């Protein structure tokens, strides 16, 4: 087998070359041809493109960013770090050979954020669950970023093009208008185009999350039941928490069915017909009948309970609505609180300081807290978050400011209880504070883009900021108490690269 490798280390005078020599020697001993490009202090001679073209696989024994990594795009690779190559070169060569034989597809050039698709079979149960979750989350993040930013841009354009009410109007422009009457000179039409496209992208969040969790567990047979289960979760209003359930359920069902001993004649149609068919049907049955119905009645119950609460202490109501907004980020509980607020807006003939407007303000402010808090936490304490989460944190700023709570879902899906507890507390504080400062809001959506429609905007922003800081502080404290295995592994790999860059 022909392998190419890149070695590098922080100082660039010792491990880079030891790794290169060790890999070449171990390759020779195992009967493989290994060419190493040493990206060290003595300057590096790039590998001959012909050698790269002929190579079956790539070994990254690099602690620094690999230079011109796109030269190796599309080849199976392993990424081991320089130390492993020095200490156990034969093991690294064997792993590379195994990767080539398994045909592990290479990620794109944007390797740092590349999805974690392979799960370590030997890991403990806890680590495995995290890896399954992270697989789903890392495939979901681009949808969150793309969809969320499109929606936010839609609001932005609407505010400039449609005046202070533009943000309210943009959400009610129907898709049929885009199909029949789109006018490229009308700003609101562009706003609606951005908004509607973003909404469609958002529709994939939960299915992609669920589908790729199932994929991580069961490989390809998990995809169909996983995606369909996620979509049903959205349909029955179970949100991302439902999607986590369907992901695991679909994955294990598919895995279990794929291990059945079946007659030879059936074996051929197992992956294409039998596994997707059976597992999808079971997931559908469970979601619609066993999970969907209780969620629907829970939502009904919560709604009538909330309606009964109107007129009671507003600050307590704000805290409760805030907690609901922060709990499942677009799931059933969140939806009940949001619907409660929006329905209130529709009441005829409201006074400008009506309670309904204050409820809307509390709900909107609370819904901004979770993504902002995750953005803040992943900015100030990078080390507690995976690479994928850090990337998502950057987008979460904009999503949070635009009242798109879904920006926090990747964080919550990867580490549900810590993130949800933190979000719950911060959102609840924000909800209560908004009630206390008496802000009112007559737009159902938009975040800071509808700030002109908010009374006492400073108080509103202050309430959001306080909740954000509380949530971020909590999530940092909870995550510090028990660091995530995947994050630790990633850090072991980059610690040196980071220090070297800084030095």
């Amino acid at each position: 087998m022909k392998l190419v490798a890149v070695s590098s280390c922080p100082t660039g005078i010792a491990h880079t070359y030891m790794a290169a020599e060790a890999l070449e020697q171990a390759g020779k001993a195992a009967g493989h041809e290994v060419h190493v490009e040493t990206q060290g202090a003595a300057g590096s001679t790039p590998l001959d493109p012909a050698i790269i073209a002929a190579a079956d696989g790539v070994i990254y024994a690099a602690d620094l960013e690999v230079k011109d990594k796109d030269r190796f795009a599309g080849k199976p690779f392993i990424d081991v770090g320089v130390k492993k190559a020095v200490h156990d070169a034969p093991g690294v060569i064997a792993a590379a050979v195994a990767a080539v034989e398994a045909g592990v597809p290479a990620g794109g050039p944007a390797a740092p954020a590349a999805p974690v698709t392979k799960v370590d079979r030997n890991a403990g149960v806890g680590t495995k669950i995290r890896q399954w979750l992270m697989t789903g989350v890392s495939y979901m993040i681009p949808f969150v970023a793309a969809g969320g930013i499109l929606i936010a841009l839609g609001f932005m354009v609407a505010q400039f093009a449609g005046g202070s009410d533009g943000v309210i109007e943009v959400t009610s422009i129907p898709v049929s208008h885009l199909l029949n009457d789109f006018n490229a000179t009308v700003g609101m039409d562009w706003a609606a185009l951005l908004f509607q496209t973003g909404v469609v992208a958002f529709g994939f969040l939960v299915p992609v999350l669920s589908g790729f969790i199932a994929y991580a567990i069961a490989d390809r047979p998990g995809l169909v039941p996983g995606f369909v289960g996620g979509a049903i979760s959205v349909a029955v209003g179970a949100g991302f928490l439902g999607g986590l359930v369907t992901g695991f359920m679909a994955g294990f069902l598919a895995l279990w069915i794929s291990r059945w001993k079946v007659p030879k004649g059936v074996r051929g149609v197992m992956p294409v017909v039998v596994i997707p068919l059976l597992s999808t049907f079971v997931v559908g049955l469970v979601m619609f009948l066993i999970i969907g119905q209780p969620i629907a009645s829970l939502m009904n119950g919560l709604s009538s309970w909330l309606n009964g609460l109107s007129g009671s202490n507003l600050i307590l109501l704000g805290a409760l609505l805030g907690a609901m907004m922060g709990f499942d980020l677009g799931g059933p509980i969140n939806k009940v609180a949001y619907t409660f607020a929006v329905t209130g807006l529709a009441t005829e003939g409201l006074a400008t300081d009506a309670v309904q407007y204050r409820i809307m303000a509390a709900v909107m402010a609370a819904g901004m807290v979770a993504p902002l808090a995750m953005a803040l936490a992943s900015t100030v304490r990078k080390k507690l978050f995976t690479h994928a989460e850090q990337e998502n944190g950057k987008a979460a700023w904009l999503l949070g400011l635009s009242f798109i709570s879904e920006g926090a879902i990747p964080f919550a899906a990867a580490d549900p209880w810590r993130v949800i507890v933190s979000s719950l507390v911060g959102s609840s504080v924000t909800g209560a504070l908004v009630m206390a400062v008496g802000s009112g809001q007559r737009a159902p959506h938009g975040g800071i883009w509808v700030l002109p429609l908010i009374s006492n905007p400073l108080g509103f922003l202050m309430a959001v900021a306080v909740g954000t800081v509380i949530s971020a502080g909590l999530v940092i404290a909870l995550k510090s108490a028990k660091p995530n295995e995947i994050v630790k592994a990633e850090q072991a790999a980059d610690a040196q690269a980071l220090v070297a860059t800084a030095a």
Partner: protein
Amino acid sequence: MSTPLITPDLVAVDLVATDRDDATRQLIDLLYAAGRVTDADGFHADVRAREAQMATGMPGGIGLPHARSSHVTVPSLAVGKVAAGVDFGAPDGPATLIFLIAAPDAGDGDHLKILAALARRLVHESFRTSLKDAPDAATVAEIVTREVVPS
């Protein structure tokens, strides 16, 4: 390559050290005495910083403290043999053979190539064994000078 990488006065065959920091320091003092390092404390700090990033212990009883530093005038190697062993963070136990590699910060490619060649030799067990078995400082220096030839 007018100045050799190593001379007998940069070899300590009977090093006694309490820990890796002490062992490193004693080797640095050899480089300083030979005029290859202008500021022993400064260079020591650079080596510590590198060691803190990732322990340099290697399997087979090797410790490999090293740094590129502005306090180094010429690429140098100091070798210490510690019969009792010093922990360098290697998974398989303490190091009995310690290589301190000093590289000038502004070194050009040619200077650094000799260090690259040294690093490549270190991977070979035969090279390490011959150094472990070398009876005196002169032999150690002679083996390194003979074996480490930049490619």
